[in-house]
């Protein structure tokens, strides 16, 4: 199926513009509604049993990031997916406490 058919020709989700590293996890509502969804949507919800980024979903479906963004944005807008966004300060950079946790984690490897 061509990519434009997956997204009904849209290149943006009307409701969300997610960064490539945004994490998603499936919600209870998503699990309940799963049977009525398209194969691509079901694949996303199944994979999102564990936290998964937009980039990983694009790779999983074999579609460009822009297509994954629309598919995930729609599922998130319907509350079938929970979105976990990066935490940035007013300067647009990751918050200091986050960098400190990252440093601790990397040093422990």
């Amino acid at each position, binding site marked *: 199926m061509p990519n434009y058919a997956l997204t009904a020709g849209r290149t943006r989700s009307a409701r969300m513009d997610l960064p490539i*590293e945004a994490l998603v996890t499936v919600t209870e509502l998503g699990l309940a509604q799963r049977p009525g969804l398209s194969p691509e949507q079901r694949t996303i919800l199944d994979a999102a049993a564990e936290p998964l980024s937009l980039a990983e979903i694009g790779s999983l479906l074999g579609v460009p990031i822009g297509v994954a963004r629309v598919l995930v944005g729609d599922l998130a807008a319907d509350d079938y997916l929970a979105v*976990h966004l*990066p*935490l940035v300060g007013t300067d*647009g950079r*990751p918050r200091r406490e*986050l*960098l400190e*946790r990252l440093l601790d984690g*990397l040093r422990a490897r």
Partner: protein
Amino acid sequence: MDSAPAERAPAPAAARDGLLPLKILVSGGFGVGKTTLVRSLSEVAPLSTEEGMTSLSDGVDDTRVVPGKSTTTVAMDFGRITVDDRIVLYLFGTPGQSRFWFMWDELARGAVGAVILVDLRRIGDCFAAIDYFENRGLPFVVAVNDFPGTAGVDDDTVRDALALPADAPLTRVDARDGGSCTAALVTLVEYALARSG
């Protein structure tokens, strides 16, 4: 104290509420080892994704100078490191050429910073990446990938050749070795922290 604190029961649902993604970009010239570095660091088999730029690069990259590499990486490689119970770090290997800046802007937004890989045999290939991150005030570490025959060049010579700011960190890596690549990430995050004031 006559009793140890009770062990916390696993609470996956609660932990998930606090999930936080972070990203670090891996840049540098064509064939410098970006894919190798991402592979060395990632806990999952490195994946690739597209930003819809395939047609832009067809026939443009010079593959003659890099033995054994027949085509450029138009898809973007990425890897994943689960840092702790809340933080997941993504590494994105970004095409180093300036014609891809349109996608760097989106990738760089909110990034911790960048590892810029350098091959001393083709040192000019990283200039575009250094310019990009320097101009936008994004933290970066220059990581010299230790290819054969490049060990004799000292750091001062490299700094001069790259016109690196005095405070910009410079390190050496073997992109095939996860330990040295992790050390480069540590250097980058330390630098980002020092600059965050």
